[in-house]
C-alpha cells in the first residue's frame, strides 16, 4: 500500500517536475501556475473522456452525467472491465486530448509571458491557475463542481492487478517524459531556451525570437503537466477541483526541482524520488509519530518541504545534481545530417 503511494506520488511528481524544469530550469519562466495545466489534463480525463465513453455506451452524457456520475461511471467501468480494447482506446484518447488541451492552454499562457517579467509573470500565471480552479469548483455541469465527478476505470480490465497496471503505465509515461525532456535538453531548441534564460539580449542578437521560444517552452511544459493531471485523475477515478491544490501541484514540484537541481532532468527526477520517499515515510509512521509528539504528522511534511526549500537555496543553490552542459550530437553526425539536408534540397 505505501509502496503504491510512493510510486504514484513519484510518477506524477516526476512528470510535473520535468515539465516545470523545461519552463523554469531551461527557459527561466517563473511558472507558479502549474496547477492550471494539471487541471486541464484532469478535465480531459474527467470532463471529456468520460463523456466520450458515455456516448459510446449509450448513456446520458450531458448535465445528467455530471449529476449522477458515480452511478454511470460504475456502469461504464463494468463494461470496460470486459473489453480491454475499448479501455485502451479510451486511455489513448485521454492522453491525446490531455496533450492537445495542455498545449493550447500553455500557448494561451504565452501571451502574458511576452509582456511580463519575473514577479509579475509569476503572479499572473498563479492567478490563471486559481481562476480555472475556482471556476471548475463552482460550475456544476462540466465536472460536477463541489461534488466532483466519477470517471470510468480504464485499468479495470487487469482485474486483480488494477492499481499495479495503472502504476506501471504511469511509470512508463514518466520514463517517456524523461527521455523527451533529455532530448529537448540536447536539441538546438533546448540550447536556445537556455540562451533566453541566461541573457535575453544575447539570444536576440543571435537571431532567436524570445517570444517564440517562451511560447514553445510553455506549450511543451503545459502539455506534459496536463498528461500528469490526466493520469492522476484516471488513477484516482475522480476529479474534484479542490483536490488539485496549489500546494501539491505547484509548490511541491517547485520543491522537487529546487532540491534536485534546476535545469538537470535527472536531478529533478531524483528530487521527486527523495521527496516522495520522505512523504511516504511520514504517512507510514503517522501513528508512531503522533504518539511521540502531540501534533498531526501532516504538518511535518509542510515543515520538511519548507526547510528543504530554504536550506537548498541557502547552502546548495544549484541543487543536489547541478546543471551540466548538455552534450550535443558528435560533430560527425551533425555533418552527416547537414549532408542529408543539402542533398534533399
Amino acid at each position, binding site marked *: 500500500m505505501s509502496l503504491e503511494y510512493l510510486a504514484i506520488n513519484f510518477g506524477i511528481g516526476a512528470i510535473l517536475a520535468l515539465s516545470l524544469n523545461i519552463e523554469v530550469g531551461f527557459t527561466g519562466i517563473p511558472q507558479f501556475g502549474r496547477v492550471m495545466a494539471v487541471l486541464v489534463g484532469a478535465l480531459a480525463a474527467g470532463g471529456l473522456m468520460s463523456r466520450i465513453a458515455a456516448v459510446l455506451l449509450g448513456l446520458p452524457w450531458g448535465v445528467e452525467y455530471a449529476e449522477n456520475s458515480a452511478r454511470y461511471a460504475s456502469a461504464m467501468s463494468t463494461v470496460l472491465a470486459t473489453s480491454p480494447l475499448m479501455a485502451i482506446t479510451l486511455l489513448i484518447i485521454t492522453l491525446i486530448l490531455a496533450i492537445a488541451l495542455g498545449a493550447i492552454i500553455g500557448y494561451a499562457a504565452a501571451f502574458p509571458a511576452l509582456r511580463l517579467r519575473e514577479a509579475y509573470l509569476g503572479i499572473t500565471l498563479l492567478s490563471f491557475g486559481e481562476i480555472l480552479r475556482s471556476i471548475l469548483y*463552482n460550475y456544476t455541469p462540466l465536472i460536477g463542481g463541489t461534488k466532483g465527478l466519477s470517471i470510468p476505470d480504464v485499468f479495470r480490465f487487469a482485474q486483480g492487478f488494477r492499481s499495479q497496471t495503472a502504476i506501471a503505465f504511469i511509470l512508463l509515461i514518466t520514463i517517456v517524459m524523461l527521455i523527451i525532456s533529455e532530448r529537448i535538453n540536447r536539441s538546438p531548441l533546448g540550447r536556445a531556451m537556455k540562451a533566453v534564460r541566461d541573457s535575453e539580449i544575447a539570444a536576440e542578437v543571435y537571431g532567436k525570437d524570445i517570444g517564440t521560444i517562451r511560447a514553445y517552452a510553455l506549450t511543451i511544459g503545459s502539455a506534459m503537466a496536463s498528461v500528469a493531471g490526466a493520469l492522476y485523475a484516471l488513477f484516482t477515478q475522480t476529479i474534484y477541483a479542490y483536490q488539485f491544490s496549489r500546494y501539491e501541484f505547484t509548490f511541491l514540484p517547485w520543491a522537487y526541482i529546487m532540491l534536485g537541481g534546476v535545469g538537470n532532468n535527472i536531478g529533478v527526477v531524483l528530487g521527486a524520488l527523495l521527496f516522495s520517499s520522505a512523504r511516504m515515510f511520514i504517512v507510514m509512521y503517522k501513528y508512531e509519530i503522533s504518539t511521540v509528539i502531540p501534533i*498531526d504528522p501532516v504538518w511535518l511534511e509542510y515543515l520538511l518541504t519548507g526547510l528543504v526549500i530554504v536550506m537548498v*537555496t541557502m547552502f546548495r543553490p544549484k541543487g543536489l545534481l547541478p546543471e551540466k552542459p548538455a552534450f550535443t550530437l558528435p560533430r560527425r553526425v551533425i555533418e552527416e545530417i547537414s549532408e542529408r539536408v543539402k542533398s534533399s534540397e
Partner: protein
Amino acid sequence: MLAILFSSITYAAILAIGCASITLLYASTRTFNFAHASMVSWGFYVVFILYRFFGYTPYIYIPIASVVTAVFAILIYLLIIRRLLNLGASEITLMMVTLGIDLILFAILNMVVDILKRNFGVDATKINIVLSDPIIARIWGAPIKYIHIVSIVTAIVLVILLHIFLTRTNLGIAMRASIENPTLASILGIDINIVYALSWFIGGLLAGLSGGLLVLFMEGTTTIGFDSVVYYFAGSIVGGLYSIYGGLLGGALVGVSERFLTFLLSYWIPDIIAYRFAIPMMMLVVTLLIYPKGLAGLVRRI
C-alpha cells in the same frame, strides 16, 4: 446594499494594508513575499489565542499580533534574505525562498493549534470571533461594527503616517533613497542593511495588522492566509509593486471589486456570486495587459 458597501470598504481597507506590506518588501529588497500568507494567518491566530486566554476585547491584541509578525519578518531578513541579496540572488530565487519560509511558518502555526487542542482543550481549527464585535449603530438598517470604523481609520492613519515617515523623517528619506538607487545611497553613507531590515520590520508589522483585523471581519482556519493571499498578490500587482501608495490603492480596488462589484453585477447575472473569487483575478489580468507594470505609472513613485 449599504451593509454590503460598508463591509466591502472594510475588507478593502484590510487588504490594502496587506498589499502595502508586499509592495514595500518588493520595492526595497526585490523580494516578492510569499510568506505573507502565513504572516496573515499568524496575525489572525495571535489575536484569537490571546483573546481566548485573556478575554476583554480583541482589539488590544492586534498591536501584539503585528509585533509578532514583525519579529518573524526581521528574523527572515537577517537570517535568510540578507545573505541571498549579498549573493545577488535572482527574483525567482528570492520568491522561492519566501515560499519555503511560508510553508515553515504555516506548519508551526498548525502545530501550535494542535498543541492548544491537546494540552489546553482549545479547539482552534476553525475560529470565529466576529460575533464578539458588537453592533454599535445602524445607518438605515445597515449595521456598523467597531471593525468597520477601526479598519478604515487604521488604513487612513497608516497612509498619513507612512507619508510623514517617508517624506519628513531622515530615516524615511534614507529608505526612499535606497529603494531608488541602493548603490548611490550607500555611497552617501546610508547603511542599506539597516534600511532593509527596517522595511522588513514595517512589512511584517503591516502583514500582522492586516491578519489581526481580518479575524474580526471573517471566520477562518489556519489556511486563511493561504486562501486570501491571492487577493493580496492581486492587489499589490495591480498597484504596481513600486509604490506603497500604489499597493494601498490596488488592495482597495481589489477588495471593493471582489465584494461590491460582484454584488452590483449580481443584479444582472445572479450566478456571479459563486465566481466572486475570479473577479479580482480577472481584474489583475486585465490591468496587467493594459499596464504591464501595474497602476504604479499613474501614481508618483513611493
